[in-house]
């Protein structure tokens, strides 16, 4: 794979057009955390008030629920959580101007479509490597929903946070491509179970 591209948040369309599935990227700048409970509340409140807890235009959301910091740490362990659980809410946020999400694992079709439509990217970080990833987070500020504990919305400052472009605006999917490349088994021969 190629040398990592360095990008800074908020993301502009120029930067996004330049990102292809499989690209290594180092992200610097502010990002916002939100996972299941924060997404649910954010969108429910948006329905009622027409407002979100932060200006989402051009921003990046990191799907993470960190551990509490030990004394001397900025943040505890902070790796990505599985992204598809947020898929119910993501297209709406993309429509409102969100430009990037960071998580782990596959996205579903509606999100992939929305990424193309609204020109945004989904970055995958290395799941489970949370002790290492937290070292790229330099500051933390509570933004909203503090009562949600680990699921509260926080503003983080990233320094060269390592990710891979998983889904780009051109409809490419890094997981699908690489899995097929190394697959030595015919999946279509397996019977269909409802799983």
């Amino acid at each position, binding site marked *: *794979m190629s040398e990592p591209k360095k990008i800074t948040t908020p993301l502009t369309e120029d930067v996004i057009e330049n990102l292809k599935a499989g690209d290594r990227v180092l992200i610097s700048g502010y990002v916002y955390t939100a996972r299941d*409970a924060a997404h649910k509340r954010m969108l429910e409140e948006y329905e009622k008030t027409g407002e979100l807890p932060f200006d989402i235009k051009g921003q990046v959301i990191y799907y*993470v*629920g*960190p*551990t*509490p*910091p*030990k004394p001397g*740490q900025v943040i*505890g*362990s*902070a*790796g990505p*959580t*599985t992204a*598809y659980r947020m898929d119910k809410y993501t297209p709406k946020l993309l429509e409102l101007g969100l430009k990037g999400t960071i998580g*782990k*694992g*596959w996205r579903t079709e509606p999100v992939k479509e929305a990424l193309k439509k609204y020109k945004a990217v989904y970055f*995958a970080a*290395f*799941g*489970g*490597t*949370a*002790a*290492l990833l*937290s070292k790229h987070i330099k500051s933390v500020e509570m933004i909203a929903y503090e009562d*949600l*504990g*680990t*699921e509260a919305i926080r503003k983080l400052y990233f320094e060269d946070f390592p990710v*891979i472009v998983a889904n780009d605006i051109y409809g490419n999917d*890094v*997981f699908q*491509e*690489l*899995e*097929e*490349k*190394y*697959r*030595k*088994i015919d*999946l279509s021969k*397996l*019977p269909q*179970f409802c*799983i």
Partner: protein
Amino acid sequence: MRTIKAEEIKDKVKKLVMDAEYFIPEDFIGAIKSAKEKEESPIGVEILDTILKNAEVAAEEQVAYCQDTGYPVFFIEIGQDVHIEGNIRQAINEAVREATREGYLRASLAYDPVLERKNTGDNTPALMYFDIVPGDKIKIMFAAKGGGSENTSRQMMLKPADGWEGVKNFIIKTVANAGPNACPPFTVGVGIGGTFDYSAVLAKKSLFRHIGERHPDPKIAKLEEKLIEEINKLGVGPLGFGGSTTAVDVKIEVAPVHIASLPVAVNIQCHAARHKELEI
């Protein structure tokens, strides 16, 4: 009759939980190192290296290996000649509470599944399976089950006519569906037989067996070996970025079964293989 104080259990379990969160078992680390030698994908090799580095940093700094410090699950075997002074359930919950607070673990449990989902704040109540065994000791096995991999675990009531072929396909399909979402390389725990619920318990408990340790029945051991081979043909690879290391091991446990049934459960264990046990 041997008397064991609940207080002693609490102290030991608290350390057990914290150690499990910081120190990934040696056998798993060894399996990742040898997988690295065989991994075909360059990014796969890099990810396996990152996993090893993460384990090193977590151990060195005594911080959580993964931010999802998991659902605390205990298998507790109490010797029938043991008298416990105090309340063992309370002792274990208190151990989890203290480990969460003093060990800087994430509170990852909600009080209820579909109403408010309010966080319990301290990872209690822990899930405890109790068993009575001969002897005068207590064995406590602890596992921290991350949501990402538990979410991809599956159970299926197959028909006896489906046989091994059906079971095998179900296991492979489950692993394929888990894919990048569940943070591979996996250890795949399989329970076959028993009842609907017991198959899942077997699958979970199987994950305490050491990596590379085969089932004592050579016929089951063969099935495990075959499955490891097949699963690693899926191409999922480390963290789903493609490659030949999708699972480092498969553990099968079997139990007697109703003549009408063939239950099978697959418990996916991610690379955050946090489990540890002790004996008092």
